[in-house]
């Protein structure tokens, strides 16, 4: 980065790209050229900064000024004011909601203060399409160290000692996994990177691949060296076009630089990487299903053993890790296991990336040390609940996880504490909910997802989840009974106990955890036929207050169900007869309420 005086870093992640960040880049290029500054100021399209809520993000280096919600037309002001005159543009700076002060340096923003970025270390700092930048920030140092100073056994020992666990779900120790695969002798072995992120509401793997693809390539090569594999495969979602493009560019650059291919860095070690495309099946996050999919089969999981370490892709020993796990590996090597080991809790070392989403002020991608509390994440990093509403629950682990409540806010989170609380780490989705979320409806939402994504192979998942979902539908439709609640729990437990793969075994978690933590809300739906969040349509009735209704008829005109009729009652002070909703015909679309200017329509 040396030859330029200043750098403008613009987020080119999917979120910011959706808000025209590429236009902003274009604008900067034009204006800089116009001012003849193109040789002094470099414009860099980076990966995700994480603070998606305030995107598009533009960062000016070296003073680390952090502009939020930048529009293409703001580029001129930034160049003319900040770049040329050295004056920050105040209205584009982040405003601390607590004290209304502008914060210019991201280090001082609450969103970043408690974060510790290991896996995301380069995201937002480097141009992912430029290998030299990556190398200047320490990229491929770990691979170099492994090849020149360490034996494969030493690499595995280091990863084992670091305490790194798989970031994709259950948290299996990474070093141990590598060791198991290394032990199996074979003419060919494979390193597989699981980049088929399928959790609804999780996009950490995508952000890493978009923002720092070289760290994944480096880590896969390190893994290949340690287990004795010369082939790497990235199984990536076809719906991630940007990540695919960047990974392809990175792979070809790495080949050009001799960091992939034959005799890497003169060490005699050969390694290369190919891409395989997922085709939209959540269950392919399960490693056996993933392998079958790569082999051109239906992505159905098979029983373990045999584990992929023994018989994986094409029947050869294979090591599968997800993107975030790999992203940690180069740091473990360069900074050492001892350094890494100091971060986190006793059994969960390092950091975890979460996709913070839902009814929270600061939606975005965050990376925090293991052991942080939910309260710190939600209230400090996340900036609290949107619109000043009350926190109700946080869902972690996606469809495999559970809903935690206020009583869990001070739990130090790691793999084991989340499981103990009835949820799990999963891949790191974290969806915050306020009182406008209905818990039985949330459970149903996840079950619908599982039903759609179930491969259909085993009975508990194929039929059991369907039945769970149907019972939840009964409950949210107001047809539920107390027996249904008992059946939900029994069936949920049996599915957990009997399903074939991780998807099925964890699929009842959203139901079981909400039953545990929001029992009253279920009972309300069943006994009182009430949805306190006002989400369950069948439990709502729209009514017109005849005293407030002036009889303008606007509600009637906009009603798609034609269920609004005029009564013959004229309220005192009004000229026209009031309207009435025929509840039996009502679709509960809420159009009438939106159309009423007099506040005469309410939900009961």
């Amino acid at each position: 980065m040396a030859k330029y005086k200043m750098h403008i870093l613009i987020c080119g992640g999917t979120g910011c790209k959706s808000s025209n960040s590429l236009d902003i880049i274009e604008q900067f290029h034009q204006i800089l050229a116009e001012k003849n500054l193109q040789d002094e100021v470099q414009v860099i399209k980076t990966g995700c900064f994480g603070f998606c809520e305030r995107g598009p993000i533009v960062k000016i280096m070296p003073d680390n000024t952090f502009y939020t919600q930048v529009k293409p037309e703001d580029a001129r002001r930034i160049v003319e004011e900040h770049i040329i005159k050295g004056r920050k543009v105040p209205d584009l700076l982040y405003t601390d909601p607590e004290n209304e002060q502008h914060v210019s340096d991201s280090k001082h923003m609450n969103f970043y203060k408690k974060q510790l970025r290991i896996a995301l270390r380069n995201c937002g700092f480097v141009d992912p399409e430029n290998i030299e930048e990556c190398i200047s920030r320490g990229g491929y140092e770990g691979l170099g160290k492994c090849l020149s100073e360490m034996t494969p056994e030493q690499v595995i020992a280091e990863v084992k000692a670091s305490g790194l666990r798989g970031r994709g779900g259950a948290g299996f120790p990474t070093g141990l996994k590598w060791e198991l695969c290394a032990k199996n002798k074979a003419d060919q072995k494979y390193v597989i990177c699981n980049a088929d992120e399928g959790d609804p509401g999780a996009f950490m793997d995508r952000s890493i691949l978009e923002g720092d693809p070289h760290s994944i390539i480096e880590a896969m090569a390190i893994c290949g060296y340690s287990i004795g594999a010369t082939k790497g495969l990235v199984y990536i979602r076809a719906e991630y076009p940007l990540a695919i493009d960047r990974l392809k560019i990175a792979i070809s650059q790495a080949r050009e630089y001799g960091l992939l291919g034959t005799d890497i860095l003169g060490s005699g070690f050969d390694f290369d990487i190919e891409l395989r495309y997922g085709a939209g099946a959540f269950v392919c996050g399960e490693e056996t299903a993933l392998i079958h999919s790569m082999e051109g089969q239906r992505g159905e999981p098979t029983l373990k053993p045999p584990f992929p370490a023994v018989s994986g892709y094409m029947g050869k020993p294979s090591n599968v890790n997800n993107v975030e796990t790999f992203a940690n590996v180069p740091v473990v090597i360069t900074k050492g296991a001892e350094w890494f080991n100091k971060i986190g809790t006793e059994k969960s070392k390092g950091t975890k990336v979460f996709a913070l989403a839902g009814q929270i002020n600061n939606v975005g991608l965050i990376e925090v040390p293991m052991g942080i509390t939910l309260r710190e994440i939600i209230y400090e990093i996340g900036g609290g609940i949107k619109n000043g509403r009350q926190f109700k629950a946080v869902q972690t682990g996606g469809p495999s996880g559970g809903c935690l409540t206020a009583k869990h806010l001070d739990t130090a989170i790691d793999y084991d504490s989340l499981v103990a609380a009835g949820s799990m780490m999963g891949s790191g989705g974290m969806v915050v909910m306020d009182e406008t979320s209905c818990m039985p409806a949330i459970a149903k939402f996840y079950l619908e997802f599982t039903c759609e994504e179930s491969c259909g192979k085993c009975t508990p998942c194929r039929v059991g989840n369907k039945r769970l979902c149907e019972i939840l539908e009964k409950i949210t439709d107001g047809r539920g009974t107390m027996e249904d609640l008992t059946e939900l729990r029994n069936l949920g437990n049996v599915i957990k106990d009997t399903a074939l793969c991780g998807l099925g075994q964890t699929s009842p978690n959203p139901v079981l955890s909400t039953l545990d933590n929001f029992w009253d809300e279920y009972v309300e739906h069943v006994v009182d036929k009430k949805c306190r969040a006002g989400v369950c349509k069948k439990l709502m009735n729209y009514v017109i207050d005849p005293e407030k209704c002036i009889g303008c008829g606007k509600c009637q005109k906009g009603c798609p169900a034609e269920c609004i009729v005029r009564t013959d009652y004229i309220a005192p002070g009004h000229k026209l007869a009031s309207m009435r909703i025929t509840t039996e015909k009502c679709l509960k679309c809420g159009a009438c309420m939106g159309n009423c200017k007099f506040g005469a329509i309410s939900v009961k």
Partner: protein
Amino acid sequence: MANIKLSEDKIKVIKDIAKSFGNKPGEVINVLHQVQGKFGYLPAEVQEVVAHELNIPVSRVYGIVSFYSFFTMEPKGEHPIDICLGTACYVRGAEKVLDAFQRELNVQVGKCTPDGKFSLNTLRCVGACGLAPVAMIGDKVYGRLTPDQVPGILAEYK
């Protein structure tokens, strides 16, 4: 068993793609990806030709196409609409946005309007959770959507 009928140029496209993967049965998913990329969807005849070229049973090809949600046997509209139903979007009201699209277009999820202009689909997380709820029309992302914006957005394409 019957003859598989498809236009000559389409057969050639499929043959070329299959050949570029060495006509290997294990590459069937990659082949289907590329073929769908060319034709937009995978009708039965196309799957038959793929099976024929890779020398695998067509039942296996269909077993794969019907398994993965990315593959479709329905043609897409001129302007494919995808509504994100990921959790982040869901808790921020994506369902109501979906309802609005269905109402405005009078079309079911997974189907195409009779004039072929729009097709409506749902997907799980486009990774723009900061903009939830999100919809995509073609490559363009619409964020922070509310149901009342839907008619206006559709008008851009009419």
